[in-house]
């Protein structure tokens, strides 16, 4: 019995390892072009993500927003914030991401892109 079990152990372990190695590649959702489409996240999903990943979810959206603002203005986010400060607006991580959180909480039907655009209207008008 023992010999039988021992003779099975090695093949069973190798089979298990090979099945793990040949696991399906993690499929990306269709239409995302290889990376997750942060701006397409509905606000009601964002509201749930915030609960279990508060810091990471905020950081994710702010990083996405920085790219969006850079594409719109050609300025880095630090430059945009500096312009805002010159105009008397003071922003930090909490107030910037808090804007997204409040926007999405108020309108769960919207997309996170809309929250980014809404913040942009405050920031970019000064910076242009």
């Amino acid at each position, binding site marked *: 019995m023992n010999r039988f079990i021992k003779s099975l152990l090695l093949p069973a372990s190798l089979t298990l390892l090979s099945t793990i190695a040949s696991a*399906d590649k993690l499929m990306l*959702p269709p239409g995302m072009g290889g990376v997750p489409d942060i701006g397409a996240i*509905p606000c009601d999903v964002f509201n749930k993500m915030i609960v279990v990943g508060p810091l*990471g979810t905020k950081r994710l959206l702010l990083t996405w927003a920085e790219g969006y603002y850079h594409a719109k203005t050609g300025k880095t986010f630090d430059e945009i914030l500096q312009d805002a400060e010159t105009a008397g607006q003071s922003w930090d991580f909490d107030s910037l991401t808090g804007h997204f959180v409040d926007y999405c909480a108020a309108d769960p039907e919207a997309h996170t892109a809309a929250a980014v655009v809404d913040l942009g209207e405050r920031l970019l008008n000064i910076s242009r």
Partner: protein
Amino acid sequence: MKAAVAKNNTGKSKLWKPPIVGIVAFLLMLFAIALGHTFMVLVEHWIGQDDIYVASIFIGAASIVLLWYGVKSRNENFQTWVGFIAGLMVWMTWIEFFYMFYGRMNWGMVPRMDGPDGLRVSGTYPEYMVMGATVGLLMMMLVFYTFDKDTRCNMFLWFQKVLGLREGLGPSTKKASDRNYAIITFMETILVLWFCYTVNLLCFDPGLVGTGDLFFAVNMATVFVSFVWSGYCFFARLIWFRRVSTALRYAIAVGNIFWMGIVEVGTKWRLWTEIWVQPWNYKIEMSVVLGAFLVLILLLIFAPKKPSELGMERQS
């Protein structure tokens, strides 16, 4: 109390004989796991995410103080209960809440998303992604117990037999009276929970098993293994126990293996609703579970004990 129980311990109880002791211990364990989930959710909800991390430091420390009392005791039954409760509390606070702090707050991880368009928050929260990464550490601990000649765990003894280690390791240097069941039960609770969580996390991980046929096959295998494993342990061993303390320690493993393969996989496949993590939506149901759990605890506390469980033989 000890005298009263000893007086009651005639060995002629019509109720406390196999299979009642084992069945009660098994049911108690299933309710304990469900209520452990409920406790986590409620504590997080009541205390708030920011404060729970600080509170968990002290709840964990209080559990170690409780364990200290257990280790000092010579009563095996008391040691077993204390080891189990302290293990459960330390797992929830120093492990789960600390992982939660690192994953959610310190490292800024986002939850794993699933669903056809990747826009559904899956149950794999940041703390579980951190936990999945501890698999190597867990394996190292399992290696230690596999090569430990003093272990009395049937699974590791079986490993030792299959690997032909018995002769090399030699006879155990410890007798039953040398063992402190508080720390043994404490470590057993933590390792069983750690093992079961890790198996589930690896089997649910789309980066390892994808989301298609392999995912299905691996999880079907988990259901099969845990059904056979827990079924064998339950029918071949647990229901034949007469000693409450032994049954309780054995039920920790049997209950968790059953939960890992049947309840968790079934939940993943959406076969039923996890009412234990939504207590505010299922107040009556969870109150019934809590009531049943308390009744089972009382039953086990007042069940007749053998003198060896109460430390009478050990003191002499």
